[in-house]
């Protein structure tokens, strides 16, 4: 059973601590994605699991072994790097078989395993080529093949798709997911791309500045983010945050800093006044009856839907509108939102506040 256990893991460079006591459990066969902005420590965390970075504190266990003191080769892991890291002077077949060759595996076995891996990844016709003769996607596949032939306990991926163009990235995303389903090996995958995280992971670990912000299944994190950081990081375009004050009284109303008043179908539990309202761009719509007037700044049609940047007072709002609403920059449009899908956050702690639904339906300006 190749579980990965990280306990109170710390990393310091001199006096500067960059990973502050991270703990997580990854079960056998799970696809876990570490996601966060640049410099959040996700790659460092992965490299500590791989044994490429020293551990300043805490433990990493793979299976039932604590691997802190083991070298990378003793951990039985395989890693795929962002820039592929293929050996330039070797052919694809030699690249794939290198790890087996230096472990003195019999040549016939190496040939068989290389052929199997090449078959899985569609590399059979490329086995005699050098890395310089391959396209980006093919190189990435060779890098994955190199990981597969070793039959490791854990696959580690360090932003493997960042160097590919957008179209190829989508295809490779599906290939990696299919590969995981086929092999059933535990995967720890690092990316800064929240779309990759949402689409591929069994569980997502959101990191910020060396600490875990939230761990959970992709849709759970999307629907119930623990705080404004997670809410803003997952989902594209990012969630809109509107600062305001709840109007006292039983009905849920909120006065925005810019002066507009919004009617809500939910309100935070307990007695709170200052809140940050979180609205997903996808939950916005044009509603001539109840919409708040907003000035359209930018219209970006994607074909299937339309991304719109608009201003309600001084507040910038991103919306994703269904279809092609036929609006242009400079126009005023009435924007409403699905008021049962709002999130409230504490402006000081940025933590999400539990909401209670109200009986009165409807939303928009009061």
């Amino acid at each position, binding site marked *: 059973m190749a579980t990965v256990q990280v306990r109170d893991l710390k990393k310091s460079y001199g006096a500067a601590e960059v990973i502050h006591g991270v703990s997580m459990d990854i079960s056998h066969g799970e696809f876990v994605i570490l996601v966060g902005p640049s410099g959040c420590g996700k790659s460092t965390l992965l490299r500590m699991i*791989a*044994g*490429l970075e020293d551990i300043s504190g805490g433990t990493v266990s793979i299976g039932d072994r604590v691997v802190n003191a083991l*070298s*990378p*080769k003793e951990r039985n*892991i*395989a*890693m795929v*790097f*962002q*820039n*592929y*890291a*293929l*050996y*330039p*002077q070797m052919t694809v077949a030699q690249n794939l078989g*290198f*790890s087996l060759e*230096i*472990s003195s595996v019999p040549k016939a076995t190496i040939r068989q395993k290389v052929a199997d891996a090449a078959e899985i990844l569609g590399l059979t016709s490329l086995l005699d080529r*050098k*890395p*310089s*003769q*391959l396209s*980006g996607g093919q*190189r990435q596949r060779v890098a994955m093949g*190199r990981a597969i032939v*070793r039959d490791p306990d854990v696959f580690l991926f360090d932003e493997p798709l960042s*160097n590919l163009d957008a179209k190829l990235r989508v295809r490779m995303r599906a290939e990696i997911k299919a590969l995981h389903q086929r092999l059933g090996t535990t995967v720890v995958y690092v990316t800064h791309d929240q779309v990759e995280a949402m689409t591929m992971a069994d569980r997502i670990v959101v990191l910020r500045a060396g600490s875990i912000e939230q761990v959970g299944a992709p849709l759970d994190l999307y629907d119930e983010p623990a705080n404004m950081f997670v809410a803003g990081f997952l989902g594209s375009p990012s969630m809109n945050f509107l600062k305001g004050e709840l109007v006292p009284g039983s009905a849920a109303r909120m006065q925005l800093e810019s002066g507009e008043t919004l009617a809500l179908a939910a309100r935070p539990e307990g007695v709170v006044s200052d809140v940050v309202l979180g609205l997903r761009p996808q939950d916005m719509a044009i509603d001539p009856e109840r919409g708040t007037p907003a000035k359209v700044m930018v219209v970006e049609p994607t074909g299937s839907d339309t991304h719109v940047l608009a201003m309600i007072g001084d507040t910038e709002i991103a919306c994703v509108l269904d279809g092609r609403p036929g609006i242009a920059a400079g126009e005023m449009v009435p924007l409403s939102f699905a008021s049962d899908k709002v999130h409230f956050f504490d402006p000081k702690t940025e933590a999400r506040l539990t909401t209670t639904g109200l009986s009165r339906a409807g939303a928009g300006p009061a």
Partner: protein
Amino acid sequence: MSATTTFEEDNITPARRRDPLLVVLWVALVTVAAIWVAPFVFITFTAMKSNSDVMTTSAFSPPTDIAWENFSGAWKKGNFSNTFLNSVIITAVKVPLGLLISAMAAYALARIRLRWGRFLLVFVLFGAMIPFQVMLAPLFTLVNSLGLIDTYIGVILPYLAFGVPYQVFILHGFFRAVPKELSEAALIDGASHFTVFRRIFLPISLPVLAALLILDFVATWNEFAMALVLLQNKNMWTLPLGLMSFQGQFSNSYGQLNAAIVMTVLPAVIVYLIFQRYFVSGLTSGAVKG
């Protein structure tokens, strides 16, 4: 009609016009090349002329009858078979050994985390900054006290000491520029540092190693001052010392003297021609996204 002609002329002119700067550069290149080649032409032609031809013909006119006997005569008179052998032994041991030591040291300094790595690098590079002339006297005392005067090893060790720092400097820079993921991938694949060095770094640094080999071969083959101090016995002399002695004795035999010079220079030229084909860039292309 005339409009069409003008249009066509306009279209063609840019391709035909030469960039004046490029022309100046070409002229400069040819001039410099001619200045550099002139002594070689002079030496080679003179080496193939009899003494009377040397006196009567222009220095740059090709020989009419090739006087091959200049070569055999100089070889015999100058005892070049002995000095040649000494040079071959010293160079054949020193150059590959020096490169190997430098490459391993450069790898360790560039890729293995060492507590005093930076200090060690500076310490090694410091060696490249000391002019060896300053060290000649103490060097003689040291080699003498070790009883290594007039031995191959007594010359090879100082050659190594003075050659390694520069090579470490060049190779360290090259190894540092190799993406660290390449060695990390190999370490994860189960390779030891020695395997990473031998199977990954040595093959991709072939162009640099070839360049260093040529430079080091020429420097070692032509080295004069240290050999003069450390090799007192005539039988242990290297080619440059043999050539000096020959020049002293036979300075009037222009043909033979130049034949001796040609024979001294020839191995260096051959080594250059063999290894210059490894000067290909882009051996690492395709290793990582580029």
